[in-house]
C-alpha cells in the first residue's frame, strides 16, 4: 500500500500540472458541435435509429450552405454531430450528456423522441450548464410533473405525444395531439355504434405507460366507451411480466371489444399471443409505442399475422408536404429522406423516427443560424422565436410550456402474405391534416384470426 501511495501521488501531481497547463483563451469557433445521447442498443434501440435522421439533417446543412454562418464572427464553419450510445440505460444518460457538454464542448444538446427516462437527465445537464437543448417528443406529463415544476421548462422541448396538450395547440386545428388522432380513428370506424363500446386497457408500468394509464381511460370514458377494471388497475403490468393470462381472461369475461394501451413491443407481442390463444379477438386494437417499429410488429408473427390491423399514432409521414416548397433543409423533402433511408445499408424498413430526428436537428440548426452565434442564451432566444416549416410540420414553441406540437396522424399495420421480406406495412388511415394524406381506408373490425 505504501508503494502504491507514492506512485499515486506522483501521478496526481503530473495530472494536475498537465491539465492546468492546457487551459487556453477562448478563440473564434472553428466548428459547430451538436451532441446527442441515444439508445442505439438495448431495449429502446428502435428509438435510437433517429440518430440517422439527425445526421442527415447535419449533412444536408453542410451540403447546402457549406457550413454554419456565424454572423458574430463572420465565419462559416462546418457542423458536426456527436452521438453517444446510452445502451437504453437511464443511468448513463446524465454522465454522458455531461461528457458531451464538458468534453466534446457541444454547442447544443439533442434528445430523441423516446421514453422520458432518457430525457430527464439530459435536460438537467442542459439547465445546469446553460446549453440549449431540444428534447424530442414522448409523453410529457411524467416528465413535466416529474420535475415538480421546480426545474423551469429547460429551454425548449417538443412534445409530439402531448396527451392533454395545453390550450392553444398550433393553429388551433385538430390533428396535433394523440387524443385527436385516436378519437378521429374511432369516429371513422364508428366505434361507438359498431362495437358494444366496452374497452379493455393495458399499459406497462414504466413512465411512458404510467402516463398513458393515468390519462387515457378517463378520456375514453368521456368519449363514451365503458372501460373495464381501471379501479383495479387491470392491464397495468410491470416490465417483468411474462404471463398475461389473468388479464386476457378478465377482458374476455367482460366481453371487451375495444383494446387500447401503451407498452413496449415485446410485451405487446406476448399479450396479443395470449389473446389469440384464449380465442379472444377484439374488434379494435390500438397499441401505442408497441406498434411503432416494423421489426417489433414482425416479431409478433405471421401465422396468424397478429399485427394485422393493430393501430397507433404516426409521428411522421414520407408523404408530408406543404403546398409551397420544400420542408427539409435545401432540396430535402420528406419523400427523399424516406427514400435515402430505404437505400441505406441493409435496406431497412421505414422507421418513422428518422423524421423526428431530422426535425429536431433542423430546428436547432435554424436557431443557431438565426442567433448567428454560439452563445447559449442567444441560441435559446432564437429557439423561442422559432417559426419554421420543418420536415415534420410547423414548429413554434409555446412561451410558457416550451412545447410545440407536431402533426400526428393515425396508422394501421397492413399485412401482405406475398411480401416475405416486409410482410407488414403501416398506412395512414386517419388524418385531420391536408399535409398528411390518408393512404388507405381503416381496417375494421380486425381481420379474422380464426378462419
Amino acid at each position: 500500500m505504501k508503494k502504491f501511495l507514492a506512485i499515486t501521488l506522483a501521478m496526481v501531481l503530473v495530472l494536475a500540472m498537465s491539465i492546468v497547463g492546457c487551459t487556453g483563451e477562448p478563440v473564434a469557433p472553428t466548428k459547430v458541435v451538436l451532441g446527442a445521447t441515444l439508445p442505439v442498443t438495448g431495449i429502446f434501440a428502435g428509438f435510437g435509429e433517429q440518430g440517422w435522421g439527425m445526421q442527415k439533417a447535419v449533412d444536408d446543412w453542410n451540403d447546402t450552405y457549406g457550413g454554419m454562418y456565424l454572423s458574430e464572427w463572420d465565419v462559416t464553419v462546418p457542423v458536426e454531430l456527436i452521438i453517444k450510445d446510452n445502451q437504453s440505460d437511464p443511468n448513463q444518460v446524465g454522465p454522458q450528456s455531461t461528457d458531451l457538454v464538458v468534453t466534446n464542448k457541444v454547442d447544443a444538446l439533442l434528445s430523441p423522441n423516446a421514453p422520458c427516462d432518457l430525457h430527464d437527465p439530459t435536460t438537467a445537464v442542459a439547465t445546469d450548464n446553460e446549453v440549449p437543448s431540444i428534447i424530442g417528443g414522448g409523453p410529457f406529463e411524467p416528465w413535466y410533473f416529474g420535475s415538480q415544476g421546480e426545474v423551469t421548462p429547460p429551454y425548449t422541448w417538443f412534445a409530439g405525444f402531448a396527451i392533454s396538450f395545453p390550450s392553444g395547440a398550433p393553429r388551433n386545428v385538430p390533428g396535433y395531439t394523440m387524443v385527436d388522432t385516436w378519437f378521429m380513428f374511432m369516429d371513422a370506424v364508428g366505434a361507438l355504434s359498431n362495437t358494444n363500446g366496452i374497452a379493455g386497457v393495458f399499459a406497462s408500468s414504466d413512465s411512458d405507460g404510467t402516463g398513458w394509464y393515468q390519462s387515457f381511460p378517463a378520456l375514453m370514458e368521456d368519449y363514451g366507451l365503458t372501460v373495464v377494471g381501471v379501479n383495479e388497475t387491470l392491464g397495468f403490468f410491470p416490465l417483468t411480466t411474462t404471463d398475461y393470462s389473468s388479464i386476457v381472461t378478465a377482458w374476455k369475461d367482460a366481453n371487451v371489444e375495444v383494446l387500447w394501451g401503451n407498452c413496449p413491443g415485446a410485451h405487446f407481442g406476448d399479450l396479443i399471443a395470449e389473446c389469440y390463444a384464449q380465442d379472444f379477438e377484439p374488434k379494435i386494437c390500438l397499441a401505442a409505442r408497441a406498434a411503432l417499429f416494423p421489426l417489433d410488429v414482425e416479431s409478433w408473427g405471421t401465422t396468424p399475422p397478429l399485427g394485422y390491423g393493430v393501430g397507433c399514432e404516426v409521428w411522421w409521414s414520407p408523404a408530408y408536404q406543404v403546398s409551397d416548397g420544400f420542408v427539409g433543409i435545401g432540396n430535402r423533402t420528406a419523400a427523399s429522406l424516406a427514400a435515402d433511408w430505404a437505400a441505406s445499408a441493409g435496406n431497412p424498413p421505414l422507421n418513422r423516427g428518422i423524421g423526428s430526428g431530422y426535425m429536431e436537428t433542423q430546428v436547432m440548426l435554424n436557431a443557431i443560424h438565426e442567433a448567428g452565434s454560439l452563445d447559449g442564451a442567444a441560441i435559446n432566444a432564437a429557439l423561442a422565436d422559432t417559426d419554421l416549416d420543418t420536415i415534420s410540420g410547423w414548429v413554434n414553441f409555446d412561451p410558457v410550456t416550451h412545447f410545440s406540437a407536431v402533426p400526428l396522424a393515425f396508422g394501421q399495420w397492413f399485412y401482405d402474405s406475398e411480401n416475405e421480406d416486409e410482410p407488414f406495412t403501416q398506412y395512414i388511415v386517419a388524418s385531420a391534416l391536408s399535409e398528411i394524406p390518408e393512404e388507405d381506408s381503416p381496417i375494421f373490425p380486425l381481420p379474422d384470426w380464426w378462419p
Partner: protein
Amino acid sequence: MEDFLVGLAPPLIKGILLGGLYVVIALGLSLVFGVMKLINVAHGDLVILGSYFAWAVMGWLGIDPFLSLVAGVPLFFVLGFFVQKFIINRTFRISLDAALIACFGISIIVQNLCQAIWTPFNRSLLTDYRLLTFAVGPLTIQLRYLLDFIGGLAVMLAVRGFLRRTYLGRAISAASQNEPVAERMGINPNRVYSFAFAIAMACAAVAGVLQGLTFSFSPTSGSPFLIISFGVIILGGLGSMAGTFIGGMVFGLTQTLGAYFSGGSLLVQSIAPYLLVFVILSVRPQGIFGR
C-alpha cells in the same frame, strides 16, 4: 365448488406446462451447479444465444427450429467444452469466486455479441404451429406450453439416463457427490467439468428453441430466466435432475396460482417467486430436496 375447480384448472395446467420450460432452462444450470458448485450466471444468456442460433438457421435455411438443433446441440456442446476447458477450469484453480466472475464476463460477452450480430430488436421463432391450441374437454391447451412440458420431461430424462447409464455420466455424478474420492478413483475432474459444461450448453440450445417459441426474445432478455432457474434449482436441490423437474413445476405453479388466488394481482405474480426462493434459502439453505 365445481366453479372453483373449473376456474382453478387453467392456471393449474398452465403452471405445470410452463414449468416444463423452466425445467429445461434450469437443467443446465443445475448440472453445472451440482458438479462444480458454480453458479453459471451466464446461463440465461446462453439460452438466448440458443434462441438466436435457431432463429438465424431458420432465416438462413428456412427449416424448423427443432430441426436446427441437429446442428445446434453438437455446436453448443463443443463450444461449452472449450469454454470450460480454456476459461472456467483455469479460474477454478484460483478460486470459486474467480470462476463466478468469469461467468459474469461470459454473460456480458454473449449478450453484447448477440446485440452486435443480430441487432437489439425483438425476435421470436415464428413457426406455423407456434400459437396453435386444442381443446381437451372444457379446457384449452396451448401447443407451445405443451411443447415446453414435453421438452422439459424429455431433456430431464435424457440427462438423467446419461448420468446413470454411461461411464462418463457416472463419472460426472461421482464428481458431483464426492470429488476427492472420485479423483482417487482415477477420474480427472477437469475433464469431467468440461463434459458437464458441454452438456449444460447443449441443454441451453434446446432451452433456447423452446423459450423462443414461447416468448419473444432480445439480447438482454436472458437474465430474468437466470433468476427463475435459481428458484427452480433451489426448490429442487442442487444437481438432482428429478428434483429440478419437480422444482420447475412448483415454480410455474407458484406464478400462476399466486396470480389466481390474489385476483390476478401482477404484484404478487412478479414478487412471489423471488420471495419463495429467499424464504426457502433462509429456512433450508440446502434446498427442499437437497441432502
